[in-house]
């Protein structure tokens, strides 16, 4: 891999020779970096570059006009409506409310904790009662933290899905339950451009605490782990996968996806029973 070059300081005269070319993207990477470094510290040249960019952008108006397909508009509007349900409305309904509720709960518990601390100081003879109350408070705080973590995970999944769905190279695959979990289903969405994937599984059987579900990318010559996930009390599990999946890795061809039961920390090679599987064919 090539090391990123250091910037070379240039003066205003040199910068102004390059500003017009930069405005239409005609500088090579090193020249562009040097100019960007200069304008970052020179207001006058930055203003000239802004002006040149305005003129440069107008060049697009010279392109011969071609009508886009009406289907393209329909596709864009439909996609925008799908996005509209997620980033704008859904979070407005539950996320701020949940966050506010958690904040109130946290503040309430913090206040309660302070109160108990005062009580402990004042009532030295009643240590046992105060300790019990503190322990309860800690448990409640742990519960709030767990809820907050779950909300954060849900938000992370939502953000991932929004990013993936917006990409034109978005793909998805259905995973069906095997005989080990016949009613379980899942869907995996991914985008190579976004370098991200997202799995949502439903009707998954509960697992003991020392086990987890593990998602695998199944290539023709190997299985590659994509991470582990737990399921909630309703049997739903979610996993965000941050990797660039373009159907091939080191010459191996992606054939499908699978979910197996593995130790909670995950494994490098599959050891447990398969509960979900899909095929790209």
């Amino acid at each position: 891999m090539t090391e990123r070059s250091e910037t070379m300081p240039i003066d205003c005269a040199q910068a102004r020779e390059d500003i017009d070319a930069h405005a239409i993207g005609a500088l090579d990477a090193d020249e562009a970096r040097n100019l960007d470094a200069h304008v970052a510290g020179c207001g006058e040249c930055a203003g000239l570059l802004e002006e040149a960019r305005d003129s440069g952008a107008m060049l697009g108006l010279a392109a011969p006009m071609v009508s886009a397909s009406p289907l393209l508009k329909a596709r864009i509007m439909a996609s925008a409506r799908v996005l509209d349900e997620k980033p704008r409305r859904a979070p407005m309904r539950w996320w701020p409310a949940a966050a506010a509720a958690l904040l109130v709960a946290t503040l309430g518990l913090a206040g309660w904790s302070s109160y108990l601390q005062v009580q402990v100081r004042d009532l030295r003879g009643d240590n046992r009662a105060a300790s019990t109350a503190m322990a309860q408070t800690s448990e409640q705080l742990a519960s709030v933290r767990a809820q907050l973590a779950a909300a954060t995970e849900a938000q992370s999944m939502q953000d991932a899905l929004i990013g993936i769905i917006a990409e034109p190279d978005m793909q998805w695959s259905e995973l069906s339950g095997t005989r080990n979990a016949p009613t379980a289903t899942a869907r995996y969405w991914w985008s190579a451009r976004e370098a991200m994937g997202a799995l949502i599984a439903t009707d998954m059987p509960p697992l003991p605490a020392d086990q987890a579900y593990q998602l695998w990318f199944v290539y023709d010559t190997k299985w590659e782990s994509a991470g582990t996930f737990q399921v909630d009390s309703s049997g739903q599990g979610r996993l965000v996968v941050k990797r660039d999946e373009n159907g091939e890795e080191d010459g191996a061809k992606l054939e499908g996806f699978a979910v197996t039961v593995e130790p909670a920390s995950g494994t490098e090679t599959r050891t447990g029973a398969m509960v979900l599987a899909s095929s790209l064919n």
Partner: protein
Amino acid sequence: MDYATLQDDELMTRVCAGEMTAFETLYDRYGDLVYSVVLRVVSDGHIAEDITQDVFLRLWRKPEQFDAARGKFVTWLLSIARNRSIDERRSHGRRLRHEALPPATEEEDILPGTSDADDPATAAVLSDERAAVRQALSTLPPEQRLAVQLAYFGGLTQQEIANQLGQPLGTVKTRIRLAMQKMRVALQDRRVHDGAV
């Protein structure tokens, strides 16, 4: 309310508030223009549609990135469309129709016969502004016009243009600089005289 009568900035304010009708109005106003610019760069209808979709969905997802104080909406939108197209052309060049660098010939010159190449159904979009840009381009010597177009629509650097044209790098740099200066002056003169753009 008749959204079609609203200015771009006003529509963008409404897009920020999540108004789908405002977004649709902006698409109706500029969808063909964005598609045309992208198509000119990538030379592939399917890829041009994907990029156009990408540009508008990004506008819908992050409308706050437009700052009316920093310039006109259409130049901001065209910058996004052009940069996104050039990225595609550079990163997936082999998938595009031009498998090698674009030919550095008069074929790249979009001015001759441009009005004939327009789809009549969309020719009215920004017709005054487009006429002004073409007029400004038409006043340039052909070699300057070609250098600018190879950079803007072809995504070539000055060095690549010099290689393609078999000209010294310094000559290409001078052509681009002079062309852009003349363009800027011509467009500014028009603003002063017409109060337009």
